[in-house]
């Protein structure tokens, strides 16, 4: 095993580089991704090495970034589109749900929409509005699309490559608050499939599920809870659509208690789907109702007060107390 320590941002950069080296049909498109290397520097240096025809600085029009990526996919290219921020994906929403999601079906399987839409998502960076949103549920709800999120540099490196190689369109959610955190990356391989949920910490009392930025929050909560005698099993969802329900079921059948953590507003969300599905599948194993720790039903707040909106360790622990409080 050859491991290297790097940030998630660097891991994504290296993953993109490797994908471009392996397949000449892989192109990157987005606003300011060339000379500047992207506002988060995820594509730093790639235009210099692969040229302007493969790392394309586009005009500022998100619908066109995705709409032309569709045409490139029809022509046999694999475009990786960068949306500069989560809150700017909506001009492209029409192309994503009307064309990207449906063209494999509408062409009776002739076209493959093997494109990736990279979406820096979630908050926690002290930004102004439209820069901290969690729109994953819109996409997860749409048949024809797939949605994933990485939470570690290792996963960032491998999941971006797996997403590019995948023949279905993938919304690739990057937790921007974790871009600069370092971790070990095994450059030789990854044991996980793209949509596998991964148990990050084993436990026996409560299954705590989340993705992206929430994984670190959950692990911290598990550390504190352990000190108080409660054992949390922390699961990194990774695949948001489809969800690896089997891994969640296995865990919940053991613990009987479920807490889901997400930054997105609670109502009609990924967390809602997890609680509903697991209630159906694990009804007789449940010792408490599943609880969602989520953003509130408000527009993402001004970032001076964002830590009162995002799930904190305290809010996760409060939910753990609540599920532990049910008589069993």
């Amino acid at each position, binding site marked *: 095993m050859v491991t290297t320590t790097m940030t998630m941002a660097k891991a994504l950069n290296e993953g993109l580089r490797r994908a471009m080296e392996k397949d000449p049909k892989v192109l990157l498109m987005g606003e300011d991704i060339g000379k500047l290397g992207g506002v988060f520097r995820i594509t730093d240096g790639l235009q210099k090495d692969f040229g302007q025809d493969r790392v394309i600085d586009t005009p500022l*029009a998100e*619908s*066109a970034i995705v709409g032309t990526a569709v045409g490139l*996919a029809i022509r046999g290219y694999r475009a990786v589109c960068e949306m500069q921020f989560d809150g700017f994906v909506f001009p492209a929403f029409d192309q994503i749900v009307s064309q990207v999601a449906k063209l*494999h079906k509408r*062409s009776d*399987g*002739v076209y493959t929409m093997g494109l990736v839409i990279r979406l820096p998502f979630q908050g926690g960076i002290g930004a102004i509005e439209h820069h901290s949103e969690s729109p994953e549920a819109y996409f997860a709800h749409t048949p024809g699309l797939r949605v994933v999120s990485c939470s570690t540099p290792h996963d960032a490196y491998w999941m971006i490559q797996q997403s590019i190689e995948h023949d*279905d369109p993938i919304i690739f959610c990057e937790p921007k608050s974790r871009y600069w955190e370092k971790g070990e990356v095994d450059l030789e391989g990854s044991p996980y499939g793209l949509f596998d949920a991964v148990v990050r910490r084993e436990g026996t009392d409560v299954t705590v599920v989340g993705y992206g930025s929430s994984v670190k929050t959950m692990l911290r909560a598990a550390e504190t809870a352990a000190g108080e005698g409660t054992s949390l099993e922390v699961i990194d969802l990774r695949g948001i659509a489809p969800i690896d329900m089997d891994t969640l079921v296995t865990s919940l059948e053991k613990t009987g208690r479920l807490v889901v953590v997400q930054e997105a507003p609670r109502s009609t969300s990924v967390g809602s789907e997890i609680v509903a599905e697991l209630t159906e599948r694990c009804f007789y194993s449940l010792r408490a109702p599943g609880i969602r720790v989520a953003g509130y039903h408000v527009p993402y707040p001004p970032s001076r007060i964002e830590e009162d909106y995002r799930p904190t360790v305290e809010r996760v622990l409060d939910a753990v107390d609540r599920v532990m409080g049910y008589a069993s």
Partner: protein
Amino acid sequence: MIDEELVQLLTPEGERVSHPDYTSSLSGEEVLSMYRDMVIVRRLCNESTSLQRQGQLALWAPLQGQEGAQIGAGRALAPMDFTFPTYREHGIAWCRGVPPESLLRLFRAVSNGGWDPQKYRHHVPTIVLGNQVLNAVGYAMGVQRDGAEEAVLTFFGDGASSQGDVLEAFVWASSFNAPVVFFCQNNQFGISTPSSTQSKVPLFRRARGFGFPGVRVDGNDLLACYEVTKAALENARAGGGPTLIEAYTYRMGAHTTSDDPTRYRVEAEVEVWKHRDPIERIKALLVREYHSKPAAFEAIGAEAEAFALKLRDDVLAMGRPDPLSMFDNVYAEPHPLIDEGRRDMVELGIGGGVH
């Protein structure tokens, strides 16, 4: 006729006129063959309208009046070019070789597409206005990267010209010098909305602001549509970048079979355009210049009738799809919710046979 900037090579009476930039290169044989295309496509359209009225199609989008624009543009294509249509490009589909019954699968509501778009190099119909125009520019960027001498021809109407996707496509095509030709059929109406609501300037003039040429062509003049499109495609293939063609025409029928055009336009206007009919003026040319005999037109008419009968039979033979087919090709790779849905449907006793 309409304005002096209009490219016209044939008057509504079928008399040739000269133009400084365009000359008709078509032989009498070719003109007759394109006349045949127009007649058959109009017959296809009439039969489809009847089929809809008889409850055999869910909807039909007629093209009457636009045959000259579509057969002119469609016959100007080279085999390796790629086309991106709306839902009204029946004439283009015909030129591309799409089987006519396949064209009707969407309208019979047995498919969300209808044909193999790679085989015919003709994209599936796009109903969300303007989406396909961006897809076409992306495809053209792929052509460019492949170093191929191919062009892309994409269609939209005066209504869709207000869509952001169309305007973004202009920006992109211009910035990247993409080998794409934008073919706007200005048929005067977006359902009921007149083209004057979409644009205060003639649509073809928009191109100048985006940095590429725009041409307004008499959309009911087959010869002009052919030459203007052919030149624009050749220019695109040679690396000259995009062109906007505004084919100035008129939708003689309704927007679709769900529409009632008497509510928003006056009969007198329709009458004016009847005199500009694209088929009649080619017929007049064929008689005057090539001495085509009535027998030739009768033979084409008879062929069109036989074609319509076969089309009807083929459409009526299209049964209800197996409900389980809704799970096919949603994803290219296995997906648990697809497996689950298919399993649930089988357990309910649905699917797997004819219903």
